[in-house]
Each structure stands twice: as structure tokens, then as C-alpha cells.
């Protein structure tokens, strides 16, 4: 199989200019599986493999494409912990089942080869291994279709989750800290974006004024939006909206980070079908067009990123994306940044200056009307906080908003461009979508 390193697809440097395939690549379909809290280890209809096949079938059905027409599969074989999960995220070994569930693949992991074998794809010519997380996969598929590496490409993002407390085994149970962990773990930082972002967040509060609980309106709105999202966890599992009091009295994880600042790990899968704009026009559902993709992987200059670094990184992300899309902040109608921890989202909002929000303005913005029916429908997807840690809500909501099919979540403002991402301040990728190709 092609390695992701064999194909130069990244747009991860400054000053690349307008993307050469702007408006020539489209998303023609998507599909979501059910979203469960965990896989029970028994029900083979609810494994992440079974859910991935279901998501693929739904994406193909929506686009009106058959399995034999698919010639590209970009699938991240990591489960919920992603590429950074480390050994602590491994639950295996476990008792296995009859094929195709006779290894970890299909149960808690999925990759392109397992899907090709299990679903019977016959004409796949692009199926890279070593695929990054979805924030970058969307760009990889866009570039692959634009360059003609493949023509009809599935992007698949499975997120598995099993019983037990999250990441409590493996290296987190070790008495020793090896490799990069020798610089963090002896003092208690076991890694993760909660740790990476809570310190800059605290510095943000000190620099601009405000306090942690000023995040409450944003977190609450994410839950409200999640309750309007039929393919999310909250909607399907009767999760009640939370109040300011609920938020303020919820337990701390990394004080001041609370449990409601963290997304909920889930067992689910989603699939997206990318193709050329030309082909998409003849497909079953309304296409949305890719106007740019960009990636970033900024290196920490020392142990812990500080606010200055995070603001510089997000400024550069915004500059790259806007330049490549040929758009500016005022052109972006729908804005779905990553919110896996609520403490990082203000950095994106301000870096991209959505609706004119500048550095230090986010808490005041959150305190205003950010509902989907209001003038500033921020993160209309509900993100991960409102839908569970699928890491795909930002993309699907953007597609639906541009199509006008977001139902109760449909914004009342203009919806012709959408900016969406799964990214942290230091690494990941952005995708700009348009209702029209130009």
C-alpha cells in the first residue's frame, strides 16, 4: 500500500498562495454510524469495524456511488486515542472471534486493507498506510483527488472506545518515564491536549482578564447544538442540557479544567466521499466544494507551550488557510473549530478573527448570542463537546449548513462558506468548504 509519506500532499508551510485545486474537488456524501459510549466487547454488530462499514454504506448511498467506483481509501487505523495515544491506549489482547473479527482490526481498529478485504473493494488504487488523524486526512484526500492520484476517495475516521477508564494502563501505569515522557511525567503531566492547553489558557485569563468559568456559555451552547444533531451522541442518548450551575459545580480534572470542558470518548465511525467537482455535479446529492486545505505541526520550543506560542501558531494557521482559499475572515459564514477541550477553542476563534473577534475578545463573544439561530452561530455543529469525541461533527455540520440540510441547526445567516477542523493549536489541519466552487 502507498504510505502517506510517498505522496506530497501537505500544505503546511507559509506563503503557498491560492490552492491550485480550489473548487475542483468536492465532498459528495457522508455517512455516520450510531454513536455509542463504548463497545461492550461482545456485540459484533456494534464494533468499530461494523460501524465503519455502515458509515461507508451510508456515504456511498448518499452520493449514489457503488463500491466498485471507489478507487481511494484514506482510513486512520488509530482508535480513539489517535496517533498520540501510546501504549496506554491499548486494551488488547482480548479473546477474538471468527473472521473478519479474528484480530484487533475490526474490533477496535480499522484500516484500509481490512475494509478492502471485508467489504470487497476491487478497484482501490490509493490506500495509504500511516495515515494521520482526520484533521489532516481531509486535506490528504482533497489533494489526492485534485492531483488525480484517485478519483473517488473515501475518508474514514473510526473512533473506538471500550469499557474501563480512559488511558489508565500501559505507560501511565509504569513507574518509569522514558523518551519524551522523562521531561513531563515525573511532575505529573502524562501528556495530552488538556495539559498542553490548560497552561496557555490560564495565561490567557491573566493577560486579558476573565476567569475560567467564562467558558460556561460556550460549553453550554455546544451541548445545546449537540441536542440538535441527529447523528451525535448527546441527541441519541438523552443527554440533558447543562446549566451554568451544572458547569460550575462539575468536578475538576486538571483544576481549573472541569469534566464538562472535556469531550466524551465514544465508539463510532464516519465516512466522507471525495471526488472531482466535475463528477460530483452528476452525483445523487448536492456537493460541497473544497476551497483549500492546510496543515501544521509546530514544534514546541521548550517543555510547555505558552500563550505567546499558541497565539503565534494560530495566527499562522489562519494566514495559511485564508491565503490558500483566497478568502478573509469576513468571508467565512460557518466556523467549526475543534473543541475537544473547551480551553483551546478561543485561540482559534481569535486567530481566525471570525466575526471580528480579536485577541482577548473571546469571553465577551461567548457571553453574547452564539446560538445557531442568532447572528453569530459559532460552532454550529456542537463539536465534540455536544456530540462526543467523534472528531467529525465539525465537518458534517459544515456540509449540512452549506447544503441547507442542517434541520433544527440550520443557521439563519448566510451559509456559503464553512471553515472546519480537527486540530490543536500545535498540530492538525483545516478545511475550507464552499457551497459554490468559486
Amino acid at each position: 500500500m502507498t504510505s502517506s509519506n510517498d505522496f506530497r500532499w501537505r500544505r503546511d508551510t507559509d506563503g503557498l498562495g491560492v490552492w491550485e485545486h480550489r473548487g475542483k474537488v468536492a465532498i459528495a456524501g457522508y455517512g455516520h454510524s450510531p454513536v455509542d459510549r463504548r463497545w461492550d466487547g461482545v456485540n459484533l454488530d456494534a464494533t468499530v469495524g461494523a460501524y465503519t462499514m455502515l458509515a461507508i454504506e451510508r456515504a456511498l448511498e448518499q452520493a449514489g456511488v457503488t463500491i466498485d467506483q471507489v478507487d481511494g481509501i484514506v482510513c486512520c487505523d488509530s482508535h480513539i486515542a489517535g496517533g498520540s495515544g501510546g501504549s496506554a491506549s491499548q486494551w488488547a489482547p482480548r479473546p477474538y472471534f471468527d473472521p473478519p473479527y479474528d484480530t484487533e482490526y475490526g474490533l477496535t481498529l480499522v484500516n484500509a486493507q481490512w475494509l478492502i478485504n471485508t467489504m470487497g473493494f476491487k478497484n482501490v488504487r490509493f490506500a495509504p498506510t500511516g495515515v494521520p488523524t482526520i484533521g489532516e486526512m481531509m486535506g490528504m484526500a482533497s489533494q489526492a483527488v485534485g492531483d488525480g492520484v484517485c478519483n473517488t476517495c473515501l475518508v474514514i475516521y473510526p473512533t473506538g472506545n471500550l469499557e474501563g477508564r480512559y488511558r489508565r494502563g500501559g505507560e501511565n501505569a509504569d513507574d518509569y518515564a522514558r523518551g519524551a515522557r522523562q521531561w513531563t511525567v515525573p511532575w505529573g503531566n502524562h501528556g495530552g491536549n488538556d495539559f498542553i492547553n490548560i497552561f496557555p489558557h490560564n495565561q490567557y485569563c491573566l493577560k486579558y482578564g476573565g476567569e475560567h468559568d467564562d467558558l460556561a456559555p460556550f460549553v453550554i451552547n455546544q451541548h445545546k447544538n449537540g441536542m440538535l444533531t441527529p447523528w451525535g451522541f448527546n441527541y441519541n442518548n438523552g443527554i440533558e442540557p447543562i446549566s451554568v450551575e451544572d458547569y460550575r459545580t462539575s468536578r475538576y480534572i486538571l483544576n481549573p479544567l472541569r469534566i464538562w470542558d472535556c469531550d466524551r470518548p465514544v465508539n463510532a465511525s464516519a465516512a466522507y466521499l471525495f471526488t472531482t467537482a466535475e463528477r460530483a455535479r452528476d452525483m445523487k446529492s448536492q456537493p460541497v466544494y473544497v476551497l483549500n486545505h492546510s496543515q501544521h505541526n509546530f514544534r514546541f520550543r521548550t517543555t510547555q507551550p505558552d500563550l505567546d506560542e499558541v497565539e503565534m501558531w494560530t495566527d499562522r494557521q489562519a494566514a495559511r488557510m485564508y491565503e490558500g482559499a483566497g478568502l478573509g475572515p469576513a468571508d467565512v459564514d460557518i466556523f467549526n473549530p475543534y473543541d475537544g477541550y473547551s480551553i483551546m477553542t478561543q485561540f482559534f476563534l481569535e486567530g481566525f478573527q471570525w466575526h471580528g473577534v480579536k485577541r482577548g475578545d473571546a469571553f465577551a463573544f461567548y457571553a453574547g448570542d452564539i446560538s445557531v439561530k442568532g447572528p453569530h452561530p459559532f460552532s454550529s455543529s456542537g463539536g465534540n463537546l455536544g456530540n462526543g469525541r467523534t472528531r467529525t461533527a465539525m465537518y458534517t455540520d459544515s456540509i449540512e449548513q452549506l447544503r441547507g440540510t442542517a434541520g433544527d441547526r440550520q443557521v439563519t445567516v448566510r451559509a456559503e462558506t464553512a471553515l472546519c477542523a480537527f486540530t490543536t493549536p500545535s498540530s492538525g489541519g483545516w478545511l475550507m468548504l464552499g457551497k459554490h466552487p468559486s
Partner: protein
Amino acid sequence: MPKVIPVSDELSQPFWDAVNQRRLALQYCTACQKLQYPPQAACQVCGSADRLEWRDVEGKGHIATYIVIEDGRLNRRMPDQPYNLALVTLDEDPTVNFYSNLPGVPAYQAPVGAAVELTFEEVAPGQLIHEWQVVK
């Protein structure tokens, strides 16, 4: 307070050797005139490997901010919860920072902005780690 024990490697061995001698020695790029921590194979500014040397630093800093770990994932530190995790900037170069549990400071009571100085803590026989304590 049983902390997790760092395991040195080829790159970090000089650093931990210095710590075990109660010194804080950081990489210093003679081309960029810049301290670097944690150690890396090359200067992250100019990319030079042969201009890196080890340089003792004074060990003075300030608390930039802190959190309190109430529900962490490290088995070995569970009994310690809740405990402070502070971000300490080095006075000689505030872009270099370190973590600290601020020994002697009760949880939730870290004085943000206060001066701190280097100290050392034994986490295993013969293995020290660098820590920071508030200057009285």
C-alpha cells in the same frame, strides 16, 4: 510522594548526570546564543548539532501559572492528588520553562508570579530530579 522515575537515554544522559550532581545544565547553542530544554539532537533554531554544548544555569525562575491535578492518569501519583503542577520560567531565558510540583506549597496555594529557586528531589536511590521551591 512517589514520583515517576525518569529514564535517561543517550541524548539526555549529560543532563541527568548533572542533576544527580545537583546542577542544572542545559544545552546552549553557541551560534544562536540560546539555551535549549529539553535536550534535542540539534539546535531548534539553526539546526546545528555541533554548536550545542552543555552550560550550567543559575537556577532562578518565576511561577508563570499553575494547575492542580485532581484526576490524573498516572497510577504512581494517584495518592498525591490533588497536587500542584506549576509552570516555571527560567530567569536567564523566560522562553525556557519547566514543570514543578512546588515542594512545600499546599495544593491550590501556589503564588503565581513568585520567585523560585532550584532544588532537587530524590525519586529513586541515586536518581534526582530538578524541582523548584518558592523563595522565602
